[in-house]
């Protein structure tokens, strides 16, 4: 087999050196009752060519050649060629977590740059080396707030991604962390500050909002921060559309930012792998879950990087760790790092303005449901979203996400997204059907 680098004679020589006549004797110490005495019921191995063909056949069963207006936490952005060029390098692709600093400076340096750029983007002081994704970064942020404040309750806006909220509920259920949701203003689509004020109390550890929120609307970070802080709670700001940070004021009033970087050259890939991020104010560093890279020097006095503050982590602190996370999303974070490098200071802004412009062009042709300021997604009123989507599919267009599934009161609406990859012709064609 092509992945097994031994000839039969080498294998025989090694078995002999082990004092074993045949391979099965290597397992002689296993109790007979545990042994599988039949071959696995899986097809025999196939060639590279057949594997390619198998996945091409599967791909052919998916959407091919469709325009798409789906966003809702996963965005279609152009992936610069350099991204795959860099991550295809075996030195990045096939290395382990950089515990051995002397031979891992490539990964460590890139993560240090990643942490720096995430701080610059979010306005926070410290960013970690990545979390699994945005959805799991949310409960990690909430648990951090609980540890930092010594309080137990969490308030989360209904305008946070519905699946992120579901993940928070799963994590919170068994930790004595009651989670309460608060609403949004029906006209604006922004958080309902009065509802938040009513539900906020002195036992609240964190208030969680998203901006741009699930409806694409830039939300009231400053007002939420003032309210949260007035009751001694922390403000956690979630983002799913990282490109927005190119133009939208960063959530500097937050204590914790929990985000998803999929927009930064990470292909949609049917939901993962993506890269989550946690970024915090300085005072929360030691409550932070996940890996952190720090700067130091080597014995020659040269700048060098290493994983640091490991006493927060499970391999040292075990059941007292800040989280159970071990493996993170390093290679995906590297994709995001290359993306941020390619676009840079001017490019990210220009990219964000293109997204903003496309979405506003689209909005001009539809009936926006909310009056709040939006970035590249908007909620449009459509009498029967499912029927409209069906009609769109006939024109090879995947329409918006019908919102009734997550918000019964919005069953006459769909969430649509336009990015730099959405063409004017596609938007015109969509509008023709929805109008």
């Amino acid at each position, binding site marked *: 087999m092509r992945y097994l680098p031994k000839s039969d004679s080498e294998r025989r020589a090694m078995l002999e050196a082990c004092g074993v006549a045949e391979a099965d004797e290597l397992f002689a110490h296993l109790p007979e009752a545990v042994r599988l005495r039949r071959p696995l019921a899986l097809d025999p191995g196939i060639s590279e060519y057949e594997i390619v063909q198998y996945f091409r056949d599967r791909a052919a069963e998916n959407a091919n050649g469709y325009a798409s207006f789906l966003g809702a936490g996963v965005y279609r952005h152009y992936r610069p060629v350099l991204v795959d060029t860099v991550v295809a390098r075996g030195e990045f692709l096939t290395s382990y977590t950089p515990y051995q600093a002397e031979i*891992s400076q490539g990964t460590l340096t890139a993560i240090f740059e990643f942490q720096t750029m995430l701080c610059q983007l979010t306005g926070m002081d410290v960013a970690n080396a990545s979390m699994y994704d945005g959805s*799991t970064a949310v409960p990690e942020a909430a648990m951090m707030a609980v540890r930092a404040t010594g309080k137990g309750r969490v308030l989360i806006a209904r305008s946070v991604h519905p699946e992120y909220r579901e993940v928070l509920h799963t994590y919170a259920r068994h930790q004595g962390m009651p989670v309460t949701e608060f609403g949004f203003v029906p006209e604006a689509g922004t958080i309902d500050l009065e509802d938040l004020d009513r539900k906020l109390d002195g036992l609240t550890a964190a208030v969680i909002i998203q901006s741009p929120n699930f409806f694409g609307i830039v939300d009231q970070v400053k007002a939420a921060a003032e309210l949260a802080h007035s009751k001694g709670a922390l403000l956690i700001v979630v983002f799913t559309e990282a490109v927005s940070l190119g*133009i939208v004021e960063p959530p500097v009033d937050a204590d914790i930012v929990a985000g998803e970087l999929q927009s930064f050259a990470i292909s949609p890939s049917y939901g993962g792998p993506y890269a989550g991020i946690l970024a915090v104010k300085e005072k929360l560093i030691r409550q932070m879950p996940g890996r952190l890279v720090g700067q130091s020097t080597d014995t020659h006095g040269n700048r060098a990087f290493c994983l640091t503050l490991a006493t927060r982590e499970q391999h040292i602190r075990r059941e007292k760790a800040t989280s159970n996370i071990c493996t993170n999303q390093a290679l995906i974070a590297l994709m995001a790092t290359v993306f941020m490098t390619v676009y840079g200071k001017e490019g990210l802004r220009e990219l964000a303005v293109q997204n903003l412009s496309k979405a506003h062009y689209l909005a001009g042709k539809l009936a926006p449901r909310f009056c709040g300021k939006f970035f590249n997604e908007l909620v449009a009123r459509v009498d029967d979203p499912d029927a409209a989507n069906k009609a769109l599919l006939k024109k090879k267009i995947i329409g918006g996400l019908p919102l009734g599934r997550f918000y019964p009161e919005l069953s006459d609406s769909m969430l649509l997204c336009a990015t730099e990859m959405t063409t004017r012709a596609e938007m015109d064609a969509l509008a023709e059907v929805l109008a």
Partner: protein
Amino acid sequence: MIDKVREHLSQNEPLLFERSSPGKRAYQLPALEVPAVDPAEALGAENVRPEIEGFPEVSEVEAIRHFTRLSTWNYAIDHGMYPLGSCTMKYNPRINELVARTEALAWAHPYQPEALAQGCMEVMARLEAALAEITGMDAVTLQPAAGAHGELTGILLIRALLQQRGNPRRKILIPDSAHGTNPATAAIAGYAVENIKSSESGVLDVAALEQLVTEDVAALMVTNPNTLGVFEENIIHAAEILHAKGAMLYMDGANMNALVGIARPGDFGVDVMHLNLHKTFSTPHGGGGPGAGPVAVKAALEPFLPAPRLKRSGKRWTYDYKRKHSIGRVKAFYGNFGVLVRALAYILAHGGPGLRNATVDAVLNAVYIRKKLEPYYDLPYPAPNMHEVVFSDERQARHGVRTGDLAKRLIDYGFHPYTVSFPLIVHGALMIEPTETEGKMEIDQFIDAMISIAHEAETDPHIIKTAPHGTRTSRVDEVAAARRPVLRWKPA
């Protein structure tokens, strides 16, 4: 003595921010074909940010050189053996990378209509079935993003089942040889952790287990083979003890590379387990992730699996969201799909018999290393090992050389270190896992290096204590890094 490597030049490279110069670009966007919107007007002036201070500005050439130079500072499997115990650093087949980038898979949106995502769903269904067959379990969820995430999912499943039976119970038992993620997971799932001391032979102490298992115990989390690389020979008995008291057996599948095709956890009493696709199933570690941590369960736990579940409806796959007993979601969408594609490609390449052959070679490599190094290094637990072997630094420590030093010296010989100081039950542990994808020549070079280092410990301990010598970066001051954390670049 050192025949695997010799010195070569590597390029210096500043940080991106130090390379940056205003106005440099590595991008060009297409001309905007709709009217440009004024951000202040569209968003409100107060919502528009000033420029991103300090963000890099470099050209495309500088960008590619930057990351290429950085990459040359890493060691990687593509360079050679990476014998990290517990990590299963095997070859990452490149075909997996290619197929994961198949356009209509890589660009599939998780909310595209089911009728237009049948290919993705079929891939997941086929992988679920393969993993169920490999583990001998009844059902598999692919949602968890990594091993520790799978552990959490598994323990929440146990909690849900016990809750339904009337009492979620209070404690999880964990052997002292376990990975740190196990106790950390139990704590997050709301359980108290009780450690079980391993027996003198380094396996689960069944007599102690019998004493500890009460109606208060929800589960035992066990790694099998354990972190010494030793198969838990009493696993069936342990399962019986647990089940008799209504408790469950959770298996950490980190070491599944020792068992595929040889023994199935479902056949030896395991109720729930996770797999690390980035270990056993060859998906790349990528410098620390991404992974995937599918969880396999017995039928009794199936109703509690995270929603949605794949369901066959006539000729099509569909998602079943209406699962009233489900623990809920552990992650948005369906899992790390791109990683799942790679793992399936690996399974397809090997096929059933091939997967078993891989296990045999993995164990053969570890047993061979043990035989060859036993004369030179202390072997604290002499039980037969499987896919990894754990020595201690006892003999070398007499010369003042500890496992961490030996590991650093290994770098000079052209190898990545083994896992240092783990498992905790071995003082000064050297944990070596070669995997099946090392050939005899590479393994023999590794053995020669280890023997040579053992000699050096006696004749020239200083060279070991100050290693590595051949790397562009020498030992890094980790204490200083933690004392005054510098976690981001700032302009001078």
